[in-house]
C-alpha cells in the first residue's frame, strides 16, 4: 500500500486529509509540524508528502528543503498545501524543491485527483 505523509498543524484539516486519503486506499501518516514531519519521514520512507506551509516550529518550505537533503526523498513527490497562491510563494516552493502546490481550501475529491496524478 502506498504511504502518504500529511503534515498540518490543524487537527481538523489533518483528520480530513487523512480520512480522505485512507478512504482512497492509501496508508496515511500524520504530523503536526515540519519537525515532526521530518522525524516521521525518516522513520518510514513514504511515497508522497503533503505539507502545509504555515506551521509552528518548522514551516513547510523548510521541511521540503530538509527532505530533499535526504537521499531517500530526492525524488519523492512533495506537494505544498497553501492558501498563498502568490508567485512569491510558488517561487519559494520551487526553490525548496517541492513538486507542486495545492491551494486551500480544497475539497476531498480534488485532493484525491491531485494525489493520483503525482504519486507513483
Amino acid at each position, binding site marked *: 500500500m502506498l504511504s502518504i505523509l500529511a503534515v498540518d498543524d490543524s487537527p481538523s484539516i489533518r483528520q480530513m486529509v487523512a480520512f480522505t486519503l485512507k478512504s482512497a486506499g492509501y496508508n496515511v501518516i500524520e504530523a503536526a509540524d515540519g519537525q515532526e514531519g521530518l522525524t516521521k519521514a525518516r522513520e518510514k520512507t513514504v511515497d508522497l508528502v503533503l505539507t502545509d506551509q504555515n506551521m*509552528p516550529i518548522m514551516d513547510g518550505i523548510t521541511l521540503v528543503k530538509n527532505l530533499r537533503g535526504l537521499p*531517500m526523498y530526492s525524488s519523492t513527490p512533495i506537494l505544498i498545501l497553501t492558501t498563498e497562491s502568490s508567485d512569491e510563494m510558488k517561487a519559494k516552493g520551487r526553490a525548496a524543491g517541492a513538486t*507542486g502546490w495545492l491551494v486551500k481550501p*480544497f475539497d476531498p475529491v480534488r485532493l484525491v485527483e491531485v494525489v493520483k496524478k503525482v504519486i507513483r
Partner: protein
Amino acid sequence: MGEITNQGIQPGGIGIDLSQFFEVFFEEAYENLASYESMLLEMNLEEPDDEALNAIFRAAHSIKGGAATFGFVDVAELTHELETLLDLARRHELQLTTEMVDCLLASGDALRAQLKRHQSGGTGEPTPIDHLVSDLRRLARAQAAVAGATEKNAAGAAGDDRGNAAVAASGERVITIRVGPNEEGFDVKSLLDLFDEIPGMGKASLVTGARAPSPEFSDLTVTTASADSDLIDLFTFYVDRDKVTIMQCLAPPPPAAAPEADLGFGLFDESPASTQSQTAVAAIAPTSTQSVPATIAAKADKPAAAAESTTLRVSVEKIDQLINLVGELVITQAMLAQKAQALDPNQHSGVVAGLTDLERNTRDLQDSVMGIRMIPMSFVFNRFPRMLRDLASKLDKKIELKTSGEATELDKGLIEKITDPLTHLVRNSVDHGIETPSDRIAAGKAPHGTITLSARHQGGSIVIEVRDDGRGLNRERILAKAVEKGIPIPDNMPDQDVWQLIFAPGFSTADVVTDVSGRGVGMDVVKRNITSLGGTVELASALGQGTRVSVRLPLTLAIMDGMSVGVGGEVYILPLASVVETFQADQSKIKSLADQGKVVQVREEYLPVRPLAKLFDVPYPAVETSRSIMVIVEAEGKRSALVVDELIGQHQVVVKNLEANYRKVDGISGATIMGDGRVGLILDISYLVA
C-alpha cells in the same frame, strides 16, 4: 494571500461527509481563538515580539484554513481580513496600534459568536461583521498607503513584495479594487468608463456572480501597469479616497491553456524530483545505510512522538459515567471490607490479603479517575485579562493583573460554577477597590492598581484569592449602611464581623450604581453560590491598602468527607466541613424558650436544639435519656445543635444526586450508599440551621 471562494464544498464522488470533522474544527478554532486573544493582550505594542506576531498570524490563518475548507464562509471572510492585517504586522510593514488591537479583539469576539452559531447548527441571527471588515481594511490600508508612498519614492525599488509579487514580465498585473460602501445613486459603471476614457490605465471589469461582495460594495478586477497611487487618484474622480481599497494582487492572467489555475493546484515543471532522481544520489544510498540512521532517528525522537499522543478528547458524559462506576466499586469494596471483618483472619488469610489489595487499588483507581475531571484554574483565570482591559478602559483606571497558581487543578464542575462568583469579585475589585490614577497618586500610590488572582491547594481544599491594592473597605460607611438597613450593630464590632455585613442581601455601599458592578447580583449571591458548593468566603481589608477575598472550595463535588450519625434505625451523613463539635449535653443545660423551642447552653452561647428524629419523623422510643448526644453544626454563620442517638464514624462518601434519582427533599442535599449497602441521606445543613 489566496482568495476565498464562496463555492460550497461538495461531498463529491468518494462520498466524504465533511461534517464529521466539524467538532474537531470547532474545538481547534476555539483553542486558536483563545491563544490569539491572550497573545494580543500580552503584546507589547512598542516592541512587538516576532515570535508572538507570527503565532497570532498563524492562529488566524489556521482558523481561516479550516473555515474555508469546511464551508463556513463568514468565518473565513473575517479571518481573511485579520490575516491580511496581521501579515502586514508580522512583516513589519505596519506597526500594531491600540486601535488595531481593539479591532482585532472585537473581531475575535465576533468569530467566537460565528463559530457558536455554526456549532449549534446555524440557527439564529448571523453575527454582523461588516463594520469589522471595513475597519480592518481601513487599518490595513492606511498603512499600505504609507508603504505605497515610500515605495514610490524608492523609484520602483523592490520594497513591498506583496505589491510586486504579481508584477508580470510585461509590467502588467491583475488586482482587485473594492469600492464602497457606496452611496445611493452611485453607478459603478462610471468607474469602468474611466478606464475606457483614459488610455494607458489598463482594463477594468466588474466582479459579478458568486464572487461579488455585498451589495453596498463593488469589486473591480483591473489589469494594469499603473501604480496603486495612480489608480487611486483615478478612482477619486468619483468616490472618496477612503472608499477605495486595493484588495490583493492576483497572479498575472494565466496563459489561455493553463488548467492548473482552475484546479487550484500545479506542478513545478523543473522540480528537483524529476532532475535529481536521475543522478547518482539514489544509487549511492544503499538500503543498509538508510535503515541505520532511520532507527537512530526513531530513538532520538521518541519523546516528540510521545508528546503528540499525550492528549485525547473524551466527552464529559463518558468520564462522569466512569466516575459513577468507580463510585459503585468503592461502595462494593467498602461492603466487602465490612463483611470480611466477621471472618477469622487466620482461617481466611488469602481473602483478607486480597481485600486489602482491593482496597488500595480501588482507592488509587478512584484518585486517578477523579483526576481526569480536574482542569487547571487557568481556564477561569484566562478570561480575566480581557475583562480587566475592557473594564479599565471603561472606568479610566489603570490596572495590572497578576496571577499565580494557574496550574492548580479543580474539578470541572466546580470550575464552571466558580467562574461567575469570581468574575463578580474581580469586577467589584476593579469598580469599588481600585481608585482612579489621580486618586492613587494623591494617596501616594503608583497610578497602576494591581489585582492579584491566586489559587493553591491547602489540605483537601483549594483556596482562590482575589486581592487588590485599592482603597479597602470603609468600616464607617458599611456600619452607616447597616444602620440604615436596620441591621442591629453591637458596639465595638470587630472588623471581621463588619466585613461580613456586606454579604447581607441587598447590601451595597457603592455611592453610584455603575454599569460595571451594576445592581444585578450582590455579594450575598456570591456567598450563597460558594456556600452551595461546600465552600467558604473570607474577607480581609485595610483602609487605603486594599482588600483580599479568599474563597475556599472542596476539590471535588463527587466525594465528601462525612460524619455518619444514627437516629432511630436511620443513618444520616453530616458534611464534616460543617461539623463544629460534638458533646453530651446535660439536661440541666437545656432550656425551653417560649418562642424558640429548646436551646442548649454551650459555654457562653445558647444554641437552638434540633432533634433530628422529630425533624425527619423517625419512629423514636419515647424514653427521654438524661444525657443526649449533640452535634453542633454551622452554615452561613449560624449554628444549631442537632440531637442524635449515636455517632457512627467519619468516612469519605460518594455523593449521589437525590433529585436525579428521586426528587428534591427539604433538608437533604444528597444521598450515598453506605458500606453495608444501605442508603444514607446527606443533610443540608444550611436548611437545618435556618
